[in-house]
């Protein structure tokens, strides 16, 4: 049966199980929007394409499915770029569909023409330019497959307007045939044997749990492995939630703002088991002194990550869940009581510097607020953040026991991610509580999406941690630039009025005793709410490994006088 290119696109998208797309129409994708009306798709009209990209990203992270964002050609597509790069850096499966000028106009600087496939080449897992309708079915099928398989990532499809309106025979490609793309599942047997020997010898092993554990849905087998071998589990920023924070073997977050005892454990370990993580500079500190006595086993789906930053002893390339499932029966049960005791001693010492263990001085500190939200929500909410101090504090103090509830821009560090990703997550889990923690800076980057939240009645709770500074930059200027504050004083609008102008109920909290009541108020409302917390202006995130320092050289919160 003959169909238009736009219809074929939707036929294929619907077959991928897509129910919601986030987008913005324009000249070059109008046929797609017209055809959409005939398909069971809920379209979310965003206020800026970047917001749409983050929503699709948040939807994908929270649901484990492929997110879809759409934009028109030219500026519509370029507005997606930050969102595409964000998804790329964090390996999130999102398919971006952009309109493009008609094929015969390409290269002629037509109205709203931008070389989108050229621009997005380095920030997509793969991309396509479609000039004919008969290419669409195969490409859409491939795009979804590539986005969600192997190491997931964003795929962009740029569809010329003529291809959207042309008609051709629609045949759904049942199979995907890609000569150069075959993600592997199992690791080689001899390398597994070698890994088993290293595990057997280890006295001070540690698991570094990364985002790959979530991407591979390997949480359960990770638990089996950790318990069987009694190996403590440290997590990267994006790996949080993959291993329950309340478990005895959980060490919490590693890295620049990781826990002291966690970083100490890494530096003193004799075996690192890196599971689905990529030794980013934010988790290693300087590589010269990184885990100097540790043998390293790296389970990773992307061979280009193996040996990239840290040369490893045993590379196990493949799907983490598959490899761990192969590995668990091969290893014996061990106990590492002495090692665990050593780590807990470090922890006890570090805890004295934790602001949570200090007497309340009545001021509003973000760690306390995150902890209060954690208590009120029973630790079970989906948490999204922007980037900066509040992000690190949320990572530190919102202890997660369940996976896929922690949505933050890790690799790219994209400000403005919090609110839109929360809206996207809501479409994945309308029954769950969702909090977007934002800073005063980041919130203003995508605040326009408040209206999107109202239009969709998305039940997201926004908490703005307003310290009237770009807090993390201020902290660096305080620590490393002799407190010469440059461009970090931030004037903000009246967030309560701003929210109310969008039709969002809002409150301002300035005192410690108002906190619990405000959180309860927000939770009692169905639909978006905003709370602005006027927090301590010059607090700093501790512990901190200064850039370029060794991982165990951490700045800790100064002891209270």
């Amino acid at each position: 049966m003959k169909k238009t290119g736009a219809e074929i696109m939707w036929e294929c998208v619907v077959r991928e199980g897509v129910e919601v797309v986030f987008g913005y129409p324009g000249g070059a994708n109008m046929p797609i929007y017209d055809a959409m009306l005939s398909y069971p798709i809920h379209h979310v009209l965003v206020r800026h394409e970047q917001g749409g990209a983050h929503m699709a990203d948040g939807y994908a992270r929270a649901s484990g499915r492929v997110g879809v964002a759409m934009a028109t050609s030219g500026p519509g597509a370029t507005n997606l770029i930050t969102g595409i790069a964000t998804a790329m850096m964090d390996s999130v499966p999102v398919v971006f569909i952009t309109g493009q000028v008609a094929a015969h106009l390409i290269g002629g600087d037509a109205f709203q023409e931008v070389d989108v496939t050229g621009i997005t080449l380095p920030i997509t897992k793969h991309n396509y330019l479609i000039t004919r309708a008969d290419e669409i079915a195969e490409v859409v099928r491939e795009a979804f497959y590539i986005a969600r398989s192997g190491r997931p990532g964003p795929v962009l499809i740029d569809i010329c307007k003529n291809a959207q309106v042309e008609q051709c025979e629609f045949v759904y490609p049942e199979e995907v045939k890609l000569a150069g793309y075959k993600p592997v599942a199992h690791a080689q047997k001899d390398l597994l044997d070698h890994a088993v020997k290293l595990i057997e010898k280890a006295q001070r092993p540690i698991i570094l749990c990364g985002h790959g554990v979530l991407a591979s849905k390997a949480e359960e087998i990770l638990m089996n492995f950790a318990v069987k071998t009694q190996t403590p589990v440290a997590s990267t920023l994006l790996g949080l939630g993959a291993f329950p924070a309340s478990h005895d073997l959980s060490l919490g977050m590693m890295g620049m703002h990781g826990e002291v005892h966690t970083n100490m454990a890494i530096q003193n370990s004799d075996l690192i088991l890196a599971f689905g993580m990529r030794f980013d500079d934010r988790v290693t500190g300087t590589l010269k002194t990184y885990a100097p006595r540790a043998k390293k086993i790296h389970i990773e789906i992307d061979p280009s990550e193996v040996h990239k930053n840290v040369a490893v002893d045993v590379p196990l390339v493949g799907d983490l869940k598959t490899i761990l499932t192969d590995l668990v029966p091969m290893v014996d049960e061990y106990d590492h009581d002495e090692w665990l005791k050593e780590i807990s001693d470090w922890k006890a010492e570090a805890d004295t510097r934790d602001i949570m263990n200090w007497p309340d001085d009545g001021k509003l500190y973000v760690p306390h607020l995150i902890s209060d939200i954690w208590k009120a929500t029973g630790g079970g909410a989906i948490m999204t953040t922007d980037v900066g101090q509040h992000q690190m504090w949320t990572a530190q103090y919102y202890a997660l026991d369940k996976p896929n509830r922690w949505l933050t821009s890790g690799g790219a560090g994209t400000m403005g991610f919090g609110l839109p990703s929360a809206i996207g997550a809501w479409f994945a889990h309308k029954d769950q509580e969702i909090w977007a923690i934002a800073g005063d800076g980041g919130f203003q980057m995508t605040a326009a999406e408040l209206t999107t939240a109202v239009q969709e009645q998305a039940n997201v709770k926004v908490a703005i941690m307003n310290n009237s500074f770009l807090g993390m930059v201020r902290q660096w200027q305080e620590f490393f630039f002799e407190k010469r504050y440059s461009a970090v004083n931030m004037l903000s609008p009246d967030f309560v009025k701003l929210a109310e102008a969008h039709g969002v109920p809002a409150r301002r909290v300035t005192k410690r005793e108002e906190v619990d009541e405000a959180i309860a108020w927000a939770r009692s409302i169905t639909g978006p709410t905003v709370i602005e917390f006027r927090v301590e202006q010059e607090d700093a995130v501790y512990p901190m490994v200064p850039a370029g320092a060794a991982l165990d050289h951490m700045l800790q919160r100064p002891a209270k006088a």
Partner: protein
Amino acid sequence: MLYTFIALVENKPGVLNRVASLFRRRNFNIESLAVGRTEKPEISRMTVVVDCPNGDYDAHKIEANLYKLVNVIDVQDVTHQPSVTRDLALIKVMVGPEKRAEVNSLAEIFRARIVDVAADSVIVEITGTEDKIEGMIELLRPTGIVEMVRTGQVSMTRGVNDGVRRVQQGAVGNRYENEYEDMAEMAP
């Protein structure tokens, strides 16, 4: 040092751009890149010569990153493999009739050919290894080279020997498995 890779890629629009962009993005310096069709119309073959200051460590990185490209089917490193390597140059030399014989005899020594003769210039075509072509250029230079073009190196391994594949369709290992300890030493 210079490494030579052979990559089989899908013969599709934009694939050359993807490969070139990858090298730029990952900060590798291409010395030469030659691409053309193969006996299978759907597959193109690239010979890429790349500067690898960290030796095998960089070579691994290049292979692994090439596989990240969906259109790349196979990558092998033929640097240390017995192989036939050729480059082709066309060199236009400023030479009048009186000195043509001199250029001609020089060309014969190098098994080069004069493929075009004009009133005051000739075009010399030479095929061979990098060294041989460089040698010819040096000798022609005093005569007066006005224009030169080279195709870049193409390589093919001898006999049934393939090059080294450190990464095969995603798997780090195979011939590489006994080398991982050395790898730890090589990381910068």
